[in-house]
C-alpha cells in the first residue's frame, strides 16, 4: 500500500501545487520519486513527529495540503495532542499518513504496532479516518479525498494487498460489500480483510454463506450501510488489526446499541497486551485467532452455539 500511496500522491501533486510530503525520516524506497520530482514540496523534518504535526498546521493555515508520513504509532500516538489542537481544532487539511496496520511490523515489536490508533483518533470530531483494505482502494481513497477541507488520517498497510472483489471501490461515509450470504456478516476494516475473505470462502465450502462489509471510511462511519446489512441477521462479527476496544468492533457495537438492532456481536481483534514474543505478522495473527482458517473455525463455533 506504500507504493499505491506514493503513486497517488505523485499524481495529485502534479495536479496541485499545494500538496506537500513531509516525512519523519521514514520511507526509504518509498519517498524518493516524490523527492526528485517535487524537491520544493518534499521535506524530511527529522525524527520529530510532534513538530511534524505542528509544522503541518502552520503550512496548512497558509494554504498547503501537507501529507505527514511515518509509522502509524509514531505519527498518531506520539503527537496525538498536536493532532487534536492543530489540524482538528483549526479544521485544516493536514493528511496524517500512518504506515502499518496492526502487527505488520512484526519483528519490530509493540513500539511499532498500530493497535489503538483508530480508537484514539475516532474520538476527534471532524477528523476523517480512512483505513483501506487494499492498494486499489487506498489509491482511490487518497485521490478522491485529497482536497477535502478538513484533516484526514490514512491508516495504510505496509504490505501490497489485493482484494479483487473490492474492485478498488471507495466512497467516503460508505462501506463496500463482498458477497450477500445471510448466515453471518463480518464487518472488517483494513488489509486484514484478506483473512475475512479466506474465512468466508472456507465457511462457504462448509455450506455457510455470509457477507463481508468492508469499512474503509471509519469516520464518517457508514452507519446506514451497517444498519442495512444487519437487518435480519442474528450474529455479526467484526474483524480488525487493532485492539478490540475503540476500533470497528466498538463502532459496530455503538451502531447496534443506538439503533436498537436485535443482533449479537463478536469482536475479532487483539484482546491482550502483545509484550511476550515477537514474530511475523502472519504468525502473530494466527496466534491471536485472526488468520482465515482460525476465523472460519471461530465463526462456525459461535454460529453452532447460537
Amino acid at each position, binding site marked *: 500500500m506504500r507504493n499505491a500511496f506514493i503513486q497517488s500522491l505523485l499524481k495529485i501533486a502534479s495536479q496541485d501545487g499545494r500538496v506537500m510530503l513531509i516525512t519523519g525520516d521514514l520511507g526509504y524506497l518509498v519517498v524518493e520519486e516524490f523527492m526528485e520530482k517535487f524537491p520544493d514540496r518534499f521535506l524530511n523534518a527529522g525524527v520529530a513527529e*510532534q513538530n511534524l504535526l505542528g*509544522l503541518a498546521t502552520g*503550512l496548512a493555515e*497558509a*494554504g498547503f495540503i501537507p501529507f505527514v508520513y511515518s509509522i502509524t504509532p509514531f505519527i498518531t500516538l506520539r503527537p496525538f495532542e498536536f493532532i487534536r*489542537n492543530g489540524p482538528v*481544532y483549526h479544521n485544516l487539511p493536514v493528511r496524517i499518513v500512518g504506515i502499518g496496520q496492526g502487527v505488520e511490523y512484526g519483528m519490530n515489536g509493540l513500539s511499532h504496532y498500530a493497535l489503538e490508533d483508530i480508537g484514539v483518533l475516532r474520538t476527534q470530531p471532524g477528523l476523517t479516518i480512512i483505513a483501506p483494505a487494499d492498494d486499489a482502494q487506498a489509491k482511490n481513497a487518497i485521490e478522491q479525498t485529497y482536497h477535502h477541507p478538513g484533516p484526514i488520517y490514512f491508516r495504510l498497510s505496509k504490505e501490497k494487498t489485493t482484494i479483487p472483489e473490492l474492485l478498488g471501490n471507495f466512497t467516503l461515509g460508505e462501506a463496500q460489500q463482498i458477497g450477500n450470504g445471510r448466515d453471518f456478516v463480518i464487518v472488517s476494516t483494513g488489509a486484514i480483510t484478506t483473512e475475512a475473505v479466506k474465512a468466508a470462502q472456507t465457511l462457504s465450502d462448509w455450506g455457510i454463506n455470509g457477507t463481508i462489509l468492508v469499512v474503509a471510511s471509519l469516520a464518517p462511519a457508514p452507519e446506514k450501510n451497517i444498519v442495512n446489512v444487519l437487518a435480519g441477521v442474528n450474529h455479526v462479527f467484526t474483524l480488525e488489526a487493532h485492539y478490540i476496544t475503540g476500533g470497528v468492533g466498538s463502532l459496530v457495537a455503538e451502531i447496534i446499541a443506538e439503533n436498537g438492532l436485535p443482533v449479537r456481536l463478536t469482536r475479532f481483534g487483539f484482546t491482550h497486551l502483545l509484550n511476550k514474543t515477537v514474530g511475523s505478522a502472519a504468525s502473530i495473527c494466527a496466534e491471536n485467532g485472526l488468520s482465515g482458517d482460525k476465523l472460519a473455525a471461530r465463526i462456525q463455533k459461535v454460529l453452532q452455539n447460537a
Partner: protein
Amino acid sequence: MEINIIQNFSYNIRRIILERSYQAHVGHIGSALSVADIIASLYADVLNIDSPDDPSRDRFVLSKGHAALALYAALCLKGWISREILETYGQDNTLLGVHPERDLPGVDFGTGSLGMGMSYATGAALAAQLQKSERRVFVLVSDAECNEGIVWEAAMFASHHKLSNMYMIIDLNSQQALGYTKDVLDLTPLDQKWQAFGWDVHKIDGHNCGEIISVIKDCRNNKKQPHAIIANTKFGKGVSYMENQIKWHYWPMSAVEFHQAMQEIEQ
C-alpha cells in the same frame, strides 16, 4: 512611530488587562502584564497587518496562550474586536477565554498547550518562504515554556531551514506557575542554549518598547538564522504587589487591589 504613542498603547493594554480580569474575576494577570510592552510594540508598530484575514499579513502566535488578555486588549485597540466583544471576556458563550480561540478575528492559531505555538510558527514561517512571501512570523513564548521538548524540536527545524523570517520573543520573567524557574527547572544559560541551536540571539529589556522595536529592525539584516529575542521582563510589571510574586499567576484581584493597581499603572 513615536515612542509615546507606543507607550500609551502599552498603558491601555495594562488598563484593559486589569479592568477585564477584575470584572471576570480571572487570574493570569501577572503573565499578561509581563508581556504588555512586547505586545504593544508588536501591534502598535512592528506587525504588518492590514486586516486580520489578509493572507499576506505577518503572523503572530501567542504560544504562551495564558497571556491572552494582553492580546485581546491589543486586538481591541486595533479595532479588530469591538469593546462589546472585549467585555464578554470570561463570560459564558464568549470567544474570549483564558486562552486564545482561533475563531476570534486576529487570532492566527489557537493556543493554550505550551510549546505547540512554536511548532505552528515554524510551519507558518516555512510556508511564507515556500510562497516567496515577505511576511514574517512572530511567536511569543514564555521562559518556562522552554521546558517543553517541542520548543527544541521546532528550534532545530527553524535553524536548519534558515527561517530568518521567524522571530521568537521569549518573555523571560523568571517564574512559572508554582515557583521561580531557577528552582523548578533551571533554564540558564538560556541565551547560550539558543545560540547552540543556531539562532540569532539578542538580549533586551522587555519593557523598553524602543529597544524591542529597534532590535527587530536590526534582525532584518540577518537572513541566515531565525531570531531569538530574549526579553527580560518583570512578572506583574506595573503593579507593585504583583511584581515577581508567584501568587499572581492564578490569583484574581479584590476591589481594593484593583483600585490600587489602576492607580499604579497611571503613574
